[in-house]
Structure formats: structure tokens, C-alpha cells
């Protein structure tokens, strides 16, 4: 086996506030291989977003190292496309299409006309061509996140980082988006690091699941995903995985609400 694609090694992340040094994650290590869908799963406030921002290069580690293809991550870059949790990540002064064109033009040496064609193609992939000329404030939350995903794909990053992109969507939309994301992955086979606090989402999307303890986040387990299927046998397997994750995450707390 060659060197891992993404190597997160003994990562400790801290925030300096006015009076305190808050440790968000402690000694976290995991690796992602190429074309893997790695899920970071843990309760709210355990430092998932912080880890993702560190991989993105927006926060520098207090201790430990992050390496992408053997190269240490020190600053943000277009090789790590990021989809944020927030709805305000689209540039409000640009239409859906223009948001994608901007991302392409600023990060790759592509003429504008070609960038436009690519942006159309990406909008088609996320089923939003009829909203190409709408401004972000005219889109629903789910549509905004889809544009953000399309925009991120436009960067042609080596790895895609997603921070609970579906967390604030209604259940129906979320389910649809999860299916679409799996389809997109099947198309591109990109490497994906996906943050969620929902066990179900982790099971549906993940090929590898990293479980984090409550604040300060530490890795408590790494599990393999189960390929979702409709037949009974797999259902049992899924239920088993779900029960196992719940048991690991909440050894003594009984109910976990998402």
C-alpha cells in the first residue's frame, strides 16, 4: 500500500478566546485513501468543523500534522474544495451560474466561455439549470447547498470537504440530496471528507466512518460502511452497524437526538 492520500496525524486544535485556550480536538489521527468517502461523525460541538477547517488550511494545528499526498497543509488552497455548513457561502451578488463560473475562472486557467459551459454542465448535474440566473436569495436552502456543491466540483479539487451541508434541510430534501451526492460520487469518484452529526447520514453516505467523542473530540472508533441495499439481509447489516455506532458513541447516555 502506498502513502495515504490524506494523512491526519496526532492533530490537536485549539481556539484562543479572550480569556481561555479552548481545546477543540485532542490527538486526532485518521487517514483517507483515494476515492474514499470518509465520514467524521460525532455529537455537536465535538470539533468536527474545526478538524475540517484545519484540513482546509483555515486553522493551523496546535500540535500534529496534516498531509495531503505527502505534502503538509499550511494554508487554504483550491486543491481542497470546501462546502460550508452555512447558507451564506454563495456570493450574493452573483447568480447561481456566475458563482460557479467565478470559482472556475479564479482557480483554473480556463477561458470564460469554456468556464460557462462547464458551469452549465455542473448545474445540470445538480438539477438546477432552470435556476441558473437566479440570485442566491431567490433560492431555497437546499438549492443553495446544491449550487455550493456544484461550485465545489468546478474547482476539480483533489479532495472535497463537506461540513454538514444537509444539516439544515428538511428530511425529504435531505434524503434526495444524499442520493444525488452518491450519484455524483459514482460519476467522479472523488475523495470526500464529509462531516455529519447524524448516524443515519453517516451510514448512507460513508465508505469509512470515523467516530469522535464529545468535546474535546478524540477518535473513538473507525468503522467500514455498508453498501446500502434494499434487500432484507443488508437491512439487518445496516441496523447492526447503526446499533454498533450508537453503542460506541453513547456508552452510557441512553438517548441521542439528532
Amino acid at each position, binding site marked *: 500500500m502506498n502513502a495515504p492520500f490524506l494523512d491526519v496525524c496526532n492533530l490537536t486544535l485549539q481556539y484562543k478566546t479572550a480569556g481561555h485556550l479552548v481545546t477543540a480536538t485532542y490527538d486526532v489521527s485518521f487517514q483517507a485513501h483515494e476515492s474514499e468517502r470518509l465520514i467524521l461523525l460525532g455529537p455537536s460541538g465535538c470539533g468536527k468543523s474545526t478538524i475540517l477547517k484545519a484540513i482546509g488550511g483555515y486553522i493551523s494545528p496546535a500540535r500534529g500534522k496534516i498531509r495531503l499526498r505527502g505534502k503538509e497543509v499550511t494554508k*487554504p488552497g483550491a486543491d481542497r474544495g470546501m462546502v*460550508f455548513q452555512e447558507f451564506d457561502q454563495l*456570493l*450574493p*451578488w452573483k447568480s447561481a451560474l456566475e458563482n460557479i463560473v*467565478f470559482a472556475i475562472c479564479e482557480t483554473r486557467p480556463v477561458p470564460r466561455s469554456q468556464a460557462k459551459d462547464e458551469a452549465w454542465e455542473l448545474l445540470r448535474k445538480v438539477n438546477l439549470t432552470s435556476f441558473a440566473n437566479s440570485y442566491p436569495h431567490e433560492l431555497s436552502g437546499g438549492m443553495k447547498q446544491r449550487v455550493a456543491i456544484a461550485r465545489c466540483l468546478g474547482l476539480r479539487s483533489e479532495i472535497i470537504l463537506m461540513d454538514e451541508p444537509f444539516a439544515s434541510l428538511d428530511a425529504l430534501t435531505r434524503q434526495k440530496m444524499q442520493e444525488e451526492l452518491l450519484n455524483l460520487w459514482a460519476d467522479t469518484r472523488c475523495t470526500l471528507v464529509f462531516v455529519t452529526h447524524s448516524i443515519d447520514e453517516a451510514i448512507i453516505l460513508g465508505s469509512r466512518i470515523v467516530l469522535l467523542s464529545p468535546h474535546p473530540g478524540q477518535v473513538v472508533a473507525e468503522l467500514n460502511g455498508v453498501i446500502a441495499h434494499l434487500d432484507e439481509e443488508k437491512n439487518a447489516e445496516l441496523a447492526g452497524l447503526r446499533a454498533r455506532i450508537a453503542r460506541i458513541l453513547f456508552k452510557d447516555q441512553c438517548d441521542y437526538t439528532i
Partner: protein
Amino acid sequence: MTSPADAEAQISLTALRQEYERRVNAPELTQDVAVRLSLRERIWNITVVRKTTILIFMALCWQIYALNLQNELMLPSFTGTVTALLESMGNGELPRAIGTSLRVLAIAYASGVVVAGLITSLALSSRIGADFLETCTGMFNLLPAIALLPLALLWFGIGYASIIFVIIHSVTWPMTLNIYSGFTGVSKTLRMVGQNYELSAPAFICKLLIPAALPHILTGLKVGWAFSWRTLIASELVFGVSSGSGGIGWFIYEKKNQLEIATVFAALITLIIIGVLVENIVFKLIENKTVRKWGMSI
């Protein structure tokens, strides 16, 4: 857990009520989805029509009262004012005054914008700069520009240099405050998006920070305009410029001394018209084309 008794109660409850499913007609078929309003209602729904009606009503009241009063020196009639307006427009006196005032205003306003921009960039690049900005805006925002006029006269002499100095003071601080809060308020997420694309510093400022801060920048420009316009007229009123070619403030002062009160009224109406043109047409248009269209208005 539901007990058998509960279940029975539930059954007896639902058994009384019919279930149903139904198809609804396509919207085109149900005729009353959008019924056209009557012509009168549609005209009355136009804001301009309603506001014009109010203006006509006010002019009528004015005219009737003035005719009853019969005192041209205290309150000229509406028609007298309109005549005076046309006359002073026609003989070029008022347009000249407007031209002078606007030229001074343009110079002072542009300088104010530049100064505000400089202070803002200073404040954004260092913490001590930010402290400087906060201290200065905190103090000088509260100092009415007109109060500086005597000092300005002492420093720059009687002339437009003094007025320009006073206007720059009146414009700079509120503008700086707005522009600065616009830049510091740009969301963390948008900044991270810019970093994700590895934008260079100039591109980051021009393509991300400025458009993201545009609502506040526009507010700053608007507030600056309002302050500078009022300060200009006030300082022109306080002292005219030595010889004949004064601005509108001076025009009003002079006409009052010559007891041409209808012309004074005409000049006041001109002030209102210019203010409305800039605030409700120029700035509104810019806003409609930008922040309103983008859903960013504050």
C-alpha cells in the same frame, strides 16, 4: 404503549369520520386565482399617483391661505413662487447658483470619500489604525460641521476653501464609520470562500470584500451626501463669497435682503428638488440595480 381500551376508543373515534382523497383542478381552470382589479384601483395603487395627489392638495391649501393672507412679504402665493422660480431659472441666476454649489459639493464630497477610504484601509490593516478610527469617528461624528466654520475662516480665509474644509469634515466621519463596519462585517464564510480560491490580495479586496460590503458602502455614501448637502447650504448662508458668484445658500440670503420673498421660496423648492433627485433617483437607482437585486439591502 396503548392499552386495548385506548385502541378501542381510537377506533370508535375514526369510524365516525369519512376519509377522502380528491383531485384539484389545474390553476388555469379555476378562474379566480388572479382577477384583474378595476382601472380605478389599479391607478390608485401606483404610489406616484397617490403622492402627487398629496402634493397637489398641499399646493392648493398653500395657494388659498396665501390669497387670504394677502401679504407677499410674509407668505408669497404658490403661483407667485412658481413665477419667481421660472423667472430666476430663465435669467440664469438660479442655475448659476446651483452650478456653483454643486461644483463645490462635488470637490468636497470626492475628497471626503478619498479620506474615508484612506482611514478605512489604515484601520483594516492594523489594530492601532482601527483604534484611531474608532476614537476619531466617536469624537468628530458628534461635532457639528458648522461649528468649525469660524475656525475654518481663520485658517483658510473667506472663500470656498473654508466651505470645502467644513464639508469634508461633515462627510468623512459618518462615511468612514459605515464603510469600515461594512468591511469588518463581511461574513467569515465568504472570506473563507475567497481563501479557498487562493485569491490574490487585490482580487480578494475588489472581487470579494467590496461587493460584500457594498450595502454599507452605499449607506455611507448616502449619509455622506445628506450631511454634505445640508452643511454646504448652511455654510453658504452663514457667509457669502466675496463677490457675485455665490451658491444657492448665498442666493437665498441675498434675495431675502432684497425682500424678494417669492424667489426665496423658489430657491427652497429648488433645494428640495435637487435633494429628491439625488436621494430618490440616483441612489435608489444604484440600489435597485445592485443590493436590492441581490437581496443584500440592509
